């Protein structure tokens, strides 16, 4: 299956362009998932919600992109757009979402359906509500297998389901397959969800806050599982979370979203160790573990996320930014582009000069955090 997909990739001419979005070192292929200038708008009674507004990123096979941002920054909307799950009657989507070279945005639902679950799969936040309460988990996994393997018989699909449950570390998989979602613990249920997502060996896995509903130890197990399965299947993973701790554990690259836009993008080292966007600094200051000292005061980002119907002019973050007054007023008039910084692969959307950003971070942010 994987070889076949790679074949498709090479043949597709459209995917040859722009790899500058992807992170530095990998050159073996274009990213399996390539999002370019994605815009997602919802028409609502109150006005047009610009949930995602010009987002670009790429994820290669075998790599994990962490997408972080506060609630409402457009993370889930992005992931649903990738899978083509938005209701077309209420959603306007533009831009490109190339999955293995095929643009999901232009696809009809029937065409998209063939990719869903086979080439790209999704794991949702709350496995209890995401699994059907009336069907046994084995049946739900087998169903996911049979849609894309119509030639497989019921029993073969069932065996495959049991096999997947075993692969994701569920003990007594044959017996457990007969059981219903409510008979599983939260962590086991998420394993079921992952088994279902991976049953067709997808090349892309989108996990939207897969561990948010779980307690910390289970969370770590699930993240380990995802990492193991990734090395086994060599899939591209998009991991959505608002937990930077999770990102630092499993992601290779990080995309920081604010109000439907990317404000910082780079590899984990760059974004978490040498962040250059004041919003990223704010996110980092509100995570105790990353600062090495759990007892240090957490600094929440002041203010609230903006309305996506009426975005502030200029940089959407400027009303909450402590440094907005150091940009000669550009922050409130001109929208900052996501531009490369000196270090390759690292991009930031901020009007502050790079030297200032580095200085502010070193003097005012990192200082406080590193203090023992």
């Amino acid at each position, binding site marked *: 299956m994987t070889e076949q997909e790679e074949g498709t990739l090479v043949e597709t001419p459209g995917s040859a362009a722009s790899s500058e979005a992807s992170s530095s070192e990998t050159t073996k292929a274009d990213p399996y998932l390539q999002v370019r200038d994605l815009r997602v708008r919802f028409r609502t009674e109150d006005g047009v919600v610009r949930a995602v507004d010009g987002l670009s990123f790429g994820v290669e096979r075998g790599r994990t992109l962490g997408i972080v941002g506060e609630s409402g920054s457009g993370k889930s909307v992005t992931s649903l757009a990738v899978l083509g*799950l938005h209701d077309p009657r209420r959603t306007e989507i533009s831009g490109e979402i190339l999955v293995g070279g095929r643009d999901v945005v232009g696809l009809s639902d029937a065409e998209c359906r*063939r990719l869903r679950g*086979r080439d790209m*799969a999704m794991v949702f936040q709350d496995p209890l*509500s995401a699994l059907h*309460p009336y069907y046994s988990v084995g049946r739900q996994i087998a*169903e996911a297998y049979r849609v894309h393997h119509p030639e497989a018989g019921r029993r073969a699909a069932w065996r495959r389901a049991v096999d997947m449950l075993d692969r994701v570390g569920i003990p007594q998989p044959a017996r457990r397959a007969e059981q219903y979602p409510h008979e599983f613990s939260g962590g086991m249920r998420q394993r079921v969800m992952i088994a*279902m997502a991976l049953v067709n060996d997808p090349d892309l896995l989108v996990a939207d806050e897969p561990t948010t509903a779980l307690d910390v130890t289970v969370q770590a197990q699930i993240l380990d599982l995802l990492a193991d399965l990734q090395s086994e299947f060599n899939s591209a993973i998009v991991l959505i979370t608002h937990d930077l701790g999770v990102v630092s554990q499993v992601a290779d690259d990080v995309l920081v979203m604010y109000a439907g836009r990317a404000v910082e993008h780079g590899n984990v080292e760059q974004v978490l160790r040498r962040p250059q966007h004041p919003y990223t600094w704010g996110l980092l200051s509100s995570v105790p573990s990353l600062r090495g000292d759990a007892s240090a005061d957490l600094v929440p980002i002041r203010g609230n996320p903006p309305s996506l119907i009426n975005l502030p002019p200029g940089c959407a973050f400027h009303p909450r930014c402590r440094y907005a007054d150091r940009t000669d007023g550009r922050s409130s008039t001109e929208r900052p582009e996501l531009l490369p910084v000196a270090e390759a692969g690292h991009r930031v959307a901020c009007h502050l000069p790079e030297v200032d950003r580095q200085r502010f971070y070193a003097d005012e942010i990192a200082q406080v955090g590193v203090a023992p």
Partner: protein
Amino acid sequence: MLRFVVKKVLLALSTLLAVSVITFGMFFAVPNNPAELMCGDSKNVCSPERIEMIERRMGLDKPIPVQYAEFMRGVFVGRTIGTGPTARDCPAPCLGFSFRSDEPVTGIVGRTLPVTLSIVFGAAVVWLVLGVSIGMVSALRRGSAFDKLAVGTSLVGASMPILLFGPLLLIGLVYETGLLGYPRYTPLTENPLAWASAMILPWFALGFLNSATYARLSRAQMLETLSEDFVRTARAKGLSKITVYGRHALRAAITPIITIAGLDLGAYLGGTVITETVFGFTGLGRTALNAALDLDMPIVMATVLLAAVFVVAANVLVDMLYAVVDPRVRLG
């Protein structure tokens, strides 16, 4: 599962027992003396001797608990009512004799129950098929012209009483246009075609009005289900629309509808007085109403008990069905 069933059935039986006790109590709570009632009907002077004779004949001279025990025994094994030369045999299920016509109550029920069953089951098919499918399509096409029309019509339907709708149908389809004949009940076993043609009006009247409620209910249920995470999961798996809506969503949305339909059926089987009266049928409901007006207590008692049996049985069936459909109930 077995324990669940046993528990439900036991609960149902004790409910019925309580209902029978209360109804039996009601029998004696009414101010009239049944014997006087019977005797007053005839032209004879009601001498105390005659009243006593009637009481003996009907077994009314015994203490109330004994009478209750005898009544219940009669229901299950049959009994002999009264003593001496006037005693009458009443085989199980014995529900006594009508005060008014002296006819065995079982016979009256046997004659009128099929009428009500015919009306209710036929109408239920109409309202389930019509209501649920309209509701589902409405939900799937939310905001479309079909949806708006369905919502509007069902609002009218749900607020229209059958007391008005029935006569309107009669005027429109029978009296003014003669499209249909005035319904005349024929037992199904006698002539299925005549049976069905007599039933068209009540089926449509009751079925259509109820389908409005069911359409609204199904629409709301389906809309709620469509926003559930597991529907999104089904789509994310790459399932076809038919499978997503027809299997995953429908299965969850239909469960509460089945429950309500079961309970409605149970309630309607006890009698559909207005429908029966409007279309001139003598069903269980009308019989019960007339008996209550006449203080014909054996019939009242029988119809009340029967209605209770239907309601309780529907409850048990719905509970079991729920357990079959929803594993959380079965195992929880």
